[in-house]
């Protein structure tokens, strides 16, 4: 699957000028409020007719203003989860969910109805009118409705913003399974929550004031110290790949990464599975010597690849750990005190509990 | 047996319904205003017989060629009366001053002066006695005679000019004066048959029984038919 988007459009004072090409999996569109994320996703869905542009999914051209192609939304087969749920007020939850089923092409694959209902916790709501649902309940129904229309691709505009953390934790792995399972459903995912993005996305597109600022594979963008100001200091952090080795009786699992082994709690995947770990720059502690007697069990030997001192009191340190890259944020004072410099070998410490389930992707 | 379809001036309703009941064949009567019906006939209305309240409209029909060479007769006569509320003093042979005096600032109800046959006759009478100009500002003209009658009956208008047939049936009005027939063009109801069935029914209307019925309803027979 490839998604190719080139758009240019004016709304009043605002100009959208975005171009990106992404591969299979989940493409995240990240940007501040008003950056133009919804405008992009609307143009992809066919609801916004841009002044100029081209949108192609897997080589099928959905829009090409130069060639006068502009497929209507119902022929694009894109399941859209709107920022506002937009449930049909005259239909109960069950009928909302089933709305799109009949328009799917006969052989279209898609998740089973029962699974979607269970996952989203909708079974108790099936006979309810949308007007009686809470904000989060509406959004869950909207997600189910889009999934059950058996789309060729999902468009999701901040789908989880109104959901509580535990519910998000239920839904995120399910989206991963959709992406990775037999359906191989690609997703264009708008979010301003970098933890969701880091967990889900394969490809990351950062837009700012209508313009594309950065795009590329998630691993590359997130471990690039230059991305720190764009993404926000608190949110910066590398994503690395790990393989599950074994589960111990006390609930801790051993994972191997290129630089050694980690012990993490609450890993659900079977041994052999490859996972994605997000390690926030601010969660990494550096030590000159290997420390002992700590409750933290994950201590990796690393080499300092680069030091970026920003304007503030902190510095972003790019680390090489085996073949992986990590990012650490420390104070400038610590850089001086510890005598950190490029090429130096030291130890990175992060607590096992630090890598939260939400940050483990596949 | 196909019914005989008659288009007739609305004011004939009571009498014509009674007569129709005595006719051997079924008769349906479509009542309406004379102008409307004349146009309908001209545009192909399925009437066997038409009876209008206005010779002018029958002339118009003839000019349109709608009557072909069928027979046209003047079927009935009516009288014009001046009415007031029940118990009002008679007002014989009034002139403009007497009428204005009797109006007491109220209005004289009548059919529309140019469109409703009864209004046309009323105007002819008033103009003839030189009272039209004085009375014109005090008129309440209606789209049919019955509405003028209702205005007097309800006390909205002080006086009214209607047909004798209308006045006779309403106990809340009294006839103050019957206008002599020479003071206005003859009030005749011309009839024309448009088919053989209509012809037959028209002949029935000329028979004694029918004429009696018309008379019971206050109409006057036309002197020897043609």
């Amino acid at each position, binding site marked *: 699957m490839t998604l190719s988007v080139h758009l240019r459009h004016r709304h009043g004072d605002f100009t959208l000028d975005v171009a990106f090409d992404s591969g299979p999996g989940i493409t995240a569109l990240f940007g501040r409020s008003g950056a133009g994320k919804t405008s992009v996703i609307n143009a992809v869905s066919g*609801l916004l007719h841009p002044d100029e542009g081209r949108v192609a999914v897997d080589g099928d051209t959905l829009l090409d203003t130069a060639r006068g192609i502009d497929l209507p939304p119902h022929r694009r087969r894109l399941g859209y989860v709107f920022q506002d749920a937009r449930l049909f007020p005259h239909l109960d939850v069950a009928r909302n969910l089933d709305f799109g089923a009949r328009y799917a092409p006969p052989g279209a694959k898609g998740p089973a109805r029962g699974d979607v209902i269970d996952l989203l916790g909708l079974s108790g709501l099936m006979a309810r009118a949308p007007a009686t649902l809470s904000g989060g309940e509406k959004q869950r129904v909207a997600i189910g409705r889009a999934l059950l229309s058996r789309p060729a691709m999902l468009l999701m505009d901040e789908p989880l913003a109104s959901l509580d953390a535990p519910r998000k934790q239920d839904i995120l792995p399910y989206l991963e399974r959709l992406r990775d399972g037999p359906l191989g459903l690609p997703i264009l995912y708008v979010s301003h929550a970098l933890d969701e993005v880091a967990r889900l996305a394969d490809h990351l597109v950062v837009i700012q004031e209508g313009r594309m600022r950065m795009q590329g594979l998630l691993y590359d963008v997130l471990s690039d110290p230059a991305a720190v100001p764009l993404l926000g200091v608190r949110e910066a952090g590398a994503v690395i790949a790990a393989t599950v080795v074994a589960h111990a009786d006390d609930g801790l699992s051993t994972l191997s990464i290129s630089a050694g082994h980690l012990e993490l709690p609450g890993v659900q995947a079977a041994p052999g599975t490859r996972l994605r770990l997000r390690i926030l720059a601010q969660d990494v502690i550096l030590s000159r010597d290997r420390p002992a007697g700590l409750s933290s069990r994950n201590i990796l030997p690393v080499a300092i690849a680069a030091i970026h001192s920003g304007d503030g009191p902190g510095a972003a340190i790019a680390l090489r750990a085996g073949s992986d890259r990590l990012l650490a944020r420390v104070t400038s004072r610590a850089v001086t005190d510890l005598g950190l410099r490029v090429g130096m070998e030291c130890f990175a410490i992060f607590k096992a509990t630090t890598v939260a389930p939400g940050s483990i992707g596949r | 047996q196909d019914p005989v379809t008659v288009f007739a001036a609305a004011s004939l309703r009571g009498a014509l319904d009674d007569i129709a009941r005595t006719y051997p064949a079924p008769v349906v009567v479509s009542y309406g205003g004379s102008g409307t019906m004349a146009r309908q006939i001209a545009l192909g209305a399925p009437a066997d017989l038409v009876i209008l309240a206005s010779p002018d409209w029958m002339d118009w029909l003839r000019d349109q060629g709608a009557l072909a060479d069928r027979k046209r007769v003047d079927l009935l006569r009516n009288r014009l009366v001046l009415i007031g509320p029940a118990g009002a003093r008679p007002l014989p042979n009034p002139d403009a001053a007497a009428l204005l005096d009797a109006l007491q600032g109220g209005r004289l109800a009548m059919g529309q002066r140019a469109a409703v046959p009864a209004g046309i006759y009323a105007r002819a009478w008033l103009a003839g006695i030189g009272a039209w100009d004085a009375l014109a500002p005090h008129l309440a003209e209606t789209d049919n005679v019955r509405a003028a009658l209702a205005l007097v009956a309800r006390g909205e208008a002080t006086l009214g000019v209607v047909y004798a047939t209308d006045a006779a049936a309403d106990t809340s009005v009294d006839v103050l004066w019957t206008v002599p027939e020479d003071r206005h063009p003859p009030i005749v109801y011309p009839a024309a048959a448009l088919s053989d069935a209509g012809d037959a029914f028209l002949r029935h209307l000329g028979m004694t029984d029918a004429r009696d019925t018309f008379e019971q309803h206050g109409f006057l027979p036309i002197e020897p038919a043609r």
Partner: protein
Amino acid sequence: MTLDAASWDALTLSLWVSVWATVLAVPLALWIAWLLARRDFWGKSALNALVHLPLVLPPVVTGYLLLLSFGRTGPIGRLLEQTFGLVLSFRWTGAVLAALVMGFPLMVRAMRLAIEAVDPRLEDAAATLGAPRWAVFARVTLPLIAPGVLAGAVMGFAKAMGEFGATITFVANIPGQTQTLPSAIYTFLQIPGGEAQAIALVLWACVVALGAVVMSEWLARRVARRIAGS
């Protein structure tokens, strides 16, 4: 409120005519309302004006225009008779046409207001779920405007029950064939002492039309309750 046979005929004919006029007008009115609400096209103002015409003109004029165009000698009337064998003037079918035309502006207005109140974002959502345009209309727009369609239908029905001027001008007042309730009432009012029967007919007209109003209210309330939930 007992009626003689002719009055009964008028009542049933009026019902029959009004039901037909309503049933035939609703889809057409819906289409025109949708065009006026959602489309931009050349001549839209003219269409809108044309729809309002029967409201503006005295009913007698409308009836006369119908007679001129749909009468047996009129251009459309002749065409209809030659191609479909359909005769309108002086038939109950013509009474249906007159009632339909007179009620049409009321229907279109009600439906158009309802369509304009539908949030187009819901229609967009339906399109992204794969629904083609007609399905969006049938499954989203139409249910949402149901109260407006119902309101329009009731207005049209009520108007059809009360229509007099255009009907009597176009199809005359032939008992058992084209004599509708209002024509019968008019006829009663033309004879001395006919008031009692006229009043009985008026009461019947009220009963029927108000029954329709109350029923439509009840239906609209059900729809509204379903949308509000519970």
